[in-house]
């Protein structure tokens, strides 16, 4: 899983930031009023960083995540991802970028139902512009990614047969399969209990240790302390950006064994219906910023 092969675009200068955002605005017009979801953001994320984007509901962090994830376009400003200017790309081109450069991990896992773990992990490869890969190569690649998250043994389990933590690990494997420039995790522990959360965070830390860039969106101050750097948002603006002084290390041990008994029934196996989708910080109630 070396990051060596990267044929997508022109050679990228590794000293350049992988994410380079300048004067980014995202303005929603609703009736007469306008909402400045992002109000002139500038931000650099360098290769190999582990950045937590923090902020309460409505702070603009979800909007930022949508733009960084190439799902949305800024109203104005520049966003360069891995050497490619994104802000003026059309739908299809952004889909290609998402496939090639971004590994998404969602709060509610978003695995396909009635599809086994291996096929879920394989899915991004099927939408890939790289058509030179054989079926066997795809399969092998997906299997390696599942091994990486300790679920090789359960490749044929469907999401209904996996615990919440296991589903999220399959999702992480899926995010890795196209060897993306960044991992973009949106509240990845939001639906997990604290022990399982730590297992999942441990995987992100391990991947980051190997040199992967991780952008983690969270409202949870505790979780942000696992990152190297915390960028805090409020009202569409960055209000603080600092390195984590006393970085926490997640306990990595348990996930390496392939079958951590789902002793944590707190996490529902399927995408939960009761959970607020957008900004779970509402439920957490005004957690303070660092």
């Amino acid at each position, binding site marked *: 899983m070396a990051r060596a092969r990267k044929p997508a675009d022109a050679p990228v200068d590794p000293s350049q930031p992988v994410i380079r955002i300048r004067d980014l605005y995202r303005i929603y017009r609703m009736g007469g009023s306008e909402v400045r979801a992002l109000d002139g953001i500038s931000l650099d994320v360098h290769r190999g960083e582990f950045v937590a984007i923090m902020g309460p509901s409505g702070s603009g962090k979800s909007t930022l995540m*949508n733009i960084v*994830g190439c*799902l*949305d376009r800024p109203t104005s400003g520049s966003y360069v991802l891995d050497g490619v200017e994104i802000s003026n790309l059309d*739908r*299809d081109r952004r*889909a*290609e970028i*998402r*496939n*090639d450069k971004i590994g*998404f991990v*969602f709060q509610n896992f*978003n695995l*396909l*139902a*009635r*599809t086994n773990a291996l*096929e879920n992990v*394989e*899915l*991004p490869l*099927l*939408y*890939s512009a790289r058509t030179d890969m054989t*079926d066997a190569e*795809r*399969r092998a690649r997906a299997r390696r990614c599942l091994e990486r998250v300790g679920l090789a043994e359960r490749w044929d389990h469907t999401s209904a047969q996996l615990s919440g933590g296991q589903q999220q690990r399959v999702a992480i494997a*899926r995010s890795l399969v*196209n060897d993306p420039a960044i991992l973009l995790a949106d509240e990845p522990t939001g639906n997990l209990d604290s022990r399982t959360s730590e297992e999942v965070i441990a995987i992100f830390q391990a991947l980051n240790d190997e040199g992967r860039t991780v952008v983690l969106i969270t409202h949870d101050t505790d979780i942000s302390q696992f990152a190297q750097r915390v960028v805090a948002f409020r009202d569409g603006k960055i209000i603080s950006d600092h390195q984590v002084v006393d970085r926490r290390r997640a306990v990595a041990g348990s996930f390496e064994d392939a079958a951590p008994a789902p002793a944590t029934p707190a996490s529902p196996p399927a*995408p939960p*219906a009761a959970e607020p*989708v*957008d900004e779970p910080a509402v439920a957490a109630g005004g957690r303070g910023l660092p």
Partner: protein
Amino acid sequence: MTKAQNILKVAVTALGRNKLRSLLTTLGIIIGVACVVATIGIGDGARIQAEDQLRSLGTNFLMIYPGSITSGGARAGFGASSKLSYEDLDAIRREIQDVTYISATNRTTQQVIYGNQNWSTSIQGAETDWPLIRSWNIERGQFFTDQDVRSANKVCVLGTTVVQNLFGSEDPIGKIIRIKNLPFKVVGVLESKGGSTMGQDQDDTVIAPYETVRKKLIGTTAVGGILASAASNDMVQRSQDEITALLRQRHRIVKASDDDFIIRTQTEMLQQAEDQSRTMSYLLWSIAGVSLLVGGIGIMNIMLVSVTERTREIGVRMAIGAKGKDIRAQFLVEAVALSIAGGTLGIFFGLGIQKGVARFAGWPVAVQPQAIALAFAFSALVGIAFGFYPALKASQLDPIEALRYE
């Protein structure tokens, strides 16, 4: 797993997830396609049979019947005129070059008795050209002679149905049967022809000399009808015109008046049979069309439901790099798979209906590969036409909204 295989697999899985719903959705297509297949098979079978039977009536023949007469403004029906005379027949025989064979005919229904068996059947009077016009061969014995006709001899030729009913396995040649208490000597047996277009058994008949039937069984001077045959198919029309002109002249019919005779040709009858089967196919085709339309709407409906149900899935696929066209292809393939599955079932049902009809109605049913191909193409077309909008709608979803969808 290639991309195409993946799309197909996803489609099949999605359909398999809700089998009953998929089946109900395709019901319209199943009925429509079954209709198409059955229609073409049965329609063609019926047409072929009608044509065969008409052809079996003879070759290039014309039938001349006395027509309606008008007396005091009231028009009597078909056959009411007794103006057709044997002299007319002689005139046709003499003057119309294109007519090769001609025979006077008449008909009566009588009880026929042999030993302790009896059977009611139609007795047809005919002359010696008759078997040539009807292209009807003698199986055993021989046809009666001109001498028999002239002398009104009591001889006859039997159809196979009459033979079976009166004689069983006994040889009828040389035996005496009784018609209207008169003894008739059986001189021949016609070969079997089967049913006619109207459904009657052509073999259920007794042929006797024209003069015998006229004098001894009916007792009239009028000619029942004249059966003639033209030298070739393209002479039929000309013969008809010539006979019409001749008879009008002989009957002194003024320009504006109707003919007092009717001429029907084999060509006309074929045409009529074709028109009938065409009307029948239009009817079945419109049923098929409506079914396919309803089926298509059903597919569109269920695909729209499916798109809504799987909004989140669409969002996930888009997030990990599926383009609009990938999503569109996926749902289009699903709609087409649905309609083709329905179409395939429909083809089998249609073939079943054909078989059933063939067995019960005794029609020859032609299973036509092009009908099956057509039905298949129709169902695929319906899938594409009605699956396109839902697929387009799916492909235009906003991934952010779709991911948020509960």
